[in-house]
């Protein structure tokens, strides 16, 4: 039977003919944990009391969420994760190496892989054609112990993309628009599969932004085919051996079809307190902001810092608006230094935070005050997300965020570019 990308990957990894609705047990190519969900994963893993990790070479520990540690409790959790890595022989990425999802994209994810992580944004690696999904601590503990996990094979929504993104409009605007169309729970338990002529112009870094937010529509995975763009990215990362083409079958069955003409998109802003509460930037124009945060697994890549630096070149942030920038990885940071982006951003008044999750989830490095408003390039604006339930979070692209930092209020980047 003709298969979607999700069905293809789950068929290969479960070694049975998998169709939407089936329950399958599939081999896992990569299982990872991070510092806020990892300690519980380790405790659950130790209760299972197996001999160890089934495939230590396929397991990774990332210290990124509260890194560097702002409190002794996190420091102790970091110590627990380091000990676990030493004892089990799995790999560990240290404080300052970057956000787990960016590092998975740079060093691990391959087309056709199954990747599970104890973090909901594990979906990010779908940009490279990997069936990547977030799970809780017990599920990841079981995947570490057994080297496999169970899945319900998801039905798929096919997202057909036409045209090219207009000036001032980015992958972030595309995915915010799409989440608004689908709704925050519209794709619960489904796969989103991206296709269409526009993919030829959508790079892997942009695909990472799009796949990253698939979960904000409830989706289990956000899958891109593996094509020339995938090969180019993997080659740039020195991983050309990891490339293999991967496409859905022509007559695969899809539950729903959604078409987007990128030419019709404009800069979008997600309003508090749900991600699907999205409007064109014109509706948010003039909202005063006390903080801008550019970074995260959604928008902390080199291309995001490049566009931010271009907008902020020779300009200053508004005196009443703090500008925080967190590169998504050490590689992104060093390249951004080499390209001069970091100097431009610092001269514009930015504070450069170490590679990691930074202010995104309110643990440190940019917690908001009562009544404060932040414009962020992250993926979530839930009440309390950035450490204070009395604060408000708006989400937008790096371009909109950088332009807004200059004026101290939410601004259409096309007015400045």
């Amino acid at each position, binding site marked *: 039977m003709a298969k979607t990308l999700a069905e293809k990957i789950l068929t290969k*990894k*479960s*070694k*049975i003919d998998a169709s939407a609705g*089936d*329950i*399958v*047990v*599939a*081999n896992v190519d990569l299982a990872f944990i991070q510092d*806020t*969900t990892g*300690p*519980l994963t380790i405790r*659950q893993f130790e*209760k*299972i*009391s197996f001999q160890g990790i089934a495939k230590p070479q396929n397991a990774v520990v990332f210290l990124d*969420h*509260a890194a560097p540690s702002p409190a002794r*409790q*996190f420091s102790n*959790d970091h110590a627990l994760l380091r000990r676990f890595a030493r004892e089990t022989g799995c790999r560990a990425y240290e404080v300052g190496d970057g956000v787990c999802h960016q590092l998975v994209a740079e060093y691990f994810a391959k087309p056709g892989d199954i990747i599970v*992580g*104890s*973090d*909901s944004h*594990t979906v990010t690696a779908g940009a490279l054609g990997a069936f990547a999904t*977030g*799970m*809780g*601590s*017990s*599920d990841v*503990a*079981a995947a570490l*112990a*057994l080297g*496999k*996990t*169970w899945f*319900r094979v998801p039905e798929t929504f096919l997202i057909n993309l036409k045209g090219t993104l207009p000036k001032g409009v980015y992958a972030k605007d595309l995915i915010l628009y799409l989440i608004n169309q689908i709704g*925050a*729970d519209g794709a*619960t*338990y489904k796969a989103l599969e991206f296709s269409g002529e526009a993919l030829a112009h959508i790079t892997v870094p942009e695909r990472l932004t799009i796949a990253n937010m698939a979960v904000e529509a*409830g989706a*289990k995975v956000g899958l891109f085919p593996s094509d020339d763009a995938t090969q180019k990215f993997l080659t740039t990362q020195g991983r050309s051996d990891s490339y293999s083409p991967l496409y859905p079958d022509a007559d695969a069955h899809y539950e729903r079809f959604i078409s987007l003409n990128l030419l019709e998109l404009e800069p979008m802003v997600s309003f508090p307190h*749900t991600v699907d509460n999205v409007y064109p930037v014109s509706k948010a124009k003039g909202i005063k902001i006390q903080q801008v945060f550019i970074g995260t697994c959604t928008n902390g890549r080199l291309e995001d810092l490049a566009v931010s630096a271009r907008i902020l070149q020779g300009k200053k942030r508004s005196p009443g608006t703090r500008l925080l920038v967190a590169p998504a990885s050490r590689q992104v940071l060093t390249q951004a230094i080499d390209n001069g982006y970091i100097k431009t951003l610092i001269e514009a008044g930015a504070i450069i935070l170490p590679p990691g999750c930074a202010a995104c*989830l*309110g*643990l440190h490095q940019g917690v908001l005050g009562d009544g404060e408003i932040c414009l962020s390039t992250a993926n*979530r604006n*839930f*009440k*309390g*997300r950035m*450490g*204070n*339930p009395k604060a408000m979070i708006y989400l937008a692209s790096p371009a909109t965020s950088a332009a807004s930092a200059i004026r101290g209020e939410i601004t259409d980047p096309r007015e400045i570019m």
Partner: protein
Amino acid sequence: MSDIIFKGKAIKLGDNISTDHIIPGRFAHLRSNLPELAKHALEDADPTFISRVKPGDFLVAGKNFGLGSSREHAPVVIKMAGISAILVESTARIFFRNAINQGVPVLLCDTTKISDGDKLEIDLAHSTVANLASGTRLTCSKVSPLMSAILSEGGLIPYIQKHKNFVIKKNSGEEPRGGD
């Protein structure tokens, strides 16, 4: 699934209760100290929750319950607060798996028929909820046989301890499939 009837009162919340509402990130430093963490359960959704919840109560909410982060601490703190089952109109995927993995039943039903404080009786074996306050009976959608088996063992860890694997039974609506 056992034939036990759960009895308790409903504590009702709204739609889109995220895992950040259930246990905010700002308490993440307490994640290795679960009794302390649990004192903050649902603090940002309903500050009165922790003072009024009684052991055996049911958490009742609307659409897309538990959206957001994969933190399993969300069902952990709900369970530690004394909640015996969660009744919602719909639930986010990761939260659903996490709750079942913690041995906390999640029942999908029309929760608009339940008000805060209603006394309920839940029959897990038959997936029904009797609302003693209104005299109505609600039918819930059934979980898959595998999830039902995980729930009967009290969660995923006891399930794996017992079976050493995922066991997908024949003739259960699930084909025996996959892996090695």
